């Protein structure tokens, strides 16, 4: 091997090693940062892991929004028209948050299936339904129709 060629091989090996290490780290971090989406009935069925960062979504149940005395902590229920779970959030809700609106909350499932949200998203259009929520509602509707037929 000529010195030039050797240099080139060393360079290539170094680059490949660097890329390999980087990809390994990246994919590991990727897996840790994946947030799965669950709808309320999945949470009730125990499919959602507790303590891990996940997202839940559904319609805010009418009359369920309760504000605690500090003025900043809010509890509300979200539903996929099959089951309902309670979400607690401390902070300022987005402008478009209101009862009957489809929302997505990011956070962790605590004890008693109380969902502690770190962030609540209501999308930037009042007629807009987050696709996850729309799909969830459709799925639960179909499931409902299915069980109806079976009974």
């Amino acid at each position, binding site marked *: 091997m000529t010195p*030039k060629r050797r*240099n*080139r091989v*060393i*360079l290539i090996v170094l*680059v490949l090693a660097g*890329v390999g290490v*980087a990809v390994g*780290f*990246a994919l590991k*971090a*990727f897996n*840790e*940062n*994946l*947030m*799965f*989406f669950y709808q309320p009935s999945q949470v009730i069925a125990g499919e959602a892991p507790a303590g891990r*960062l996940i*997202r839940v979504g559904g319609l805010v149940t009418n009359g369920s929004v309760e*504000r605690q005395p*500090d*003025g*900043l902590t809010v509890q509300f229920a979200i539903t996929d028209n099959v089951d309902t779970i309670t979400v607690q959030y*401390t*902070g*300022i*809700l987005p*402008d*478009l948050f209101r009862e009957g609106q489809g929302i997505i909350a990011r956070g962790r499932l605590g004890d008693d299936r109380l969902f502690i949200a770190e962030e609540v998203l209501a*999308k*930037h*259009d*009042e007629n807009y339904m*987050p*696709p*996850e929520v729309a*799909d969830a509602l459709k799925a639960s509707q179909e499931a409902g129709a299915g069980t109806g037929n079976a009974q």
Partner: protein
Amino acid sequence: MIPELGHFALILALAMALVLAIMPMIGSLSNTPSWVALARPLAWGQFTFLLIAFACLVNAFLVNDFSVTYVAQHGNTRLPNIYKISAVWGAHEGSLLLWAFILSGWTLAVALFARQLPDVMIGRVLAVMGMISIGFLSFMLFTSNPFARTFPVPLEGGDLNPLLQDFGLAIHPPMLYMGYVGLSVAFSFAIAALVGGKLDISWARWSRPWTTVAWVFLTIGITLGSWWAYYELGWGGWWFWDPVENASFMPWLAATALIHSLAVTEKRGAFKRWTVLLSLLAFSLSLLGTFLVRSGVLTSVHSFAADPARGLFILIFLCIVIGGSLVLYAWRAPNVTSGGEFSALSRESLLLGNNLLLIMITAFILLGTLAPLIYDAFGWGKISVGFPWFNTMFVIFTPFLVLLMGLGPLTRWKQQDAADLVRQFRIALLASLGAGLLAALPLLHEGSVYAGLAVMLSVWLTTTLLLSLRKRLRHRQGFGAFLKDIRARGGGSYYGMLLAHFGVAVFTIGVTFVTLFDVEKDVRMAPGETLELAGYTFRFDGVEKIQGPNYRADRGTLHVSRHGQDVAVLKPEKRTYLVQTRPMTEAGIDAGFFRDIYVSLGEALDAGSWSLRLYYKPLVRWIWLGGILIAIGGLLAAFDRRYRLAVRRDVAATAAPPGDALATEGPA
């Protein structure tokens, strides 16, 4: 009548694009100069008709012609005139028209300003741009006609999304589109060169300024978008790793890699195949961005419509463009000779490292952006990728990028002696390590290690740039010589590089400090109540009702003081627009070079008290300042006198026996 005129002009533009895509290309292959010569007039024609169409739509908004569906949906009589114009690109159909219009503008610009290029090359470049234009114009005409009529005619329009009624957002899309579409020029140059099978140095030199200008627009567009998100969305964030932000950032990264690799190709004749591939990649990523935004497959602030036919059309178009260009590449690229040998330590190898890092970051962002789609498509569940992942990816790779940025300008092309390089950057290394330690040591609280790292990198970058400047000015005395050097051949490129790289140093500091040391608090405040945050005292003076031109608002007043001295009076608003009746938060911001104070209204609680969001944001302006510096640097580089002179010289060289070593270095 006028909207029909616009519609008709669109059809004529499509006809022009069809001829433009076919005739000059065939002419160039069959050696028919008269067909090739059609390219320029057709570029004129296409631009003229799209200008007419665009003007017709603007007019429809200005005169409140609600018989046009698009105007009825997004216009309003009470909308201020400037937003009537920006409403043209405020939603799907109109933004496509803007896309096509800008594409025809770039096409015309190439026809006009690349006069010195050989006709055959121009013909091919314009033909490829015509093909892209066909795709967009037929997409518009067949699925999203902005001039479609509606009946019965509504009395009042649906109004522009209030979030978009803002000056920053009025100019953000045109800037971004100028960048997206501008990358089509680099793409077309690459395709034309592949078709001709002649990938030489002059190809890189032609393509370079165009790519840089497109990249500058992209930089400005992204910076504007970030600034807008910061002050308009009301929660003080400046980047969210939203799919659509990623869609604009990926082409930017690829284009950044491209302008660096073009430099190597032009100066040294190396990396040719890679440069071509990057040209294809950069534009493919802008098309992908368009697909992601316009098809509604991803949940985002930016997705307008979720019409499956539209998504399918763009997907097919995307496959044709990417697939077709890759096939052409696979067929032609093996014939390209590689040139420009270089050793393991040389400017080439460092730029190779820069390209690798940039492409890796792009690939990871692409993974994070598309992963939700892939998971959904395979039924693995609905996921989203948390922004901590994107942040981690960025934080891992960027330091290496900055290290290389410092070394690059000090390193010689072809071969660099390691000991000599170390001797050159010794001072910079000491200075940056010292500054980094100084920044990290005294506090040693959470985050100060990262702050130290950021300071170290920025000082490293700044001092190496200064060293490189000193080296360049070694033989020049006085300020006059310096000014002369800026205007000299190659001066624009060099000083542009310095400025843009310095922008990165400023940006790095801004991002790190605002991320680590911002203070944020959600509070409940009653009128008259005061509160301390980050050394500032906030006094809440209650909320009053006000009336805007097309909205009503609650406006809060906060007095901010520090050590008893008044700093600012902030007036955050909560607006309700009359037509779309959706609330909107307008933050109250006291901007400063070293810090921003940022307040937004939450909601009314009992007895006149409100929930409020208070922020202290150190050095947040440096983020956009960095972006601006990068853009100015790019402009300086793009308008380097060298390109004009060099192009003239190339023409002379093809006419006469070549005398210039550079011009003939490329293999035929």
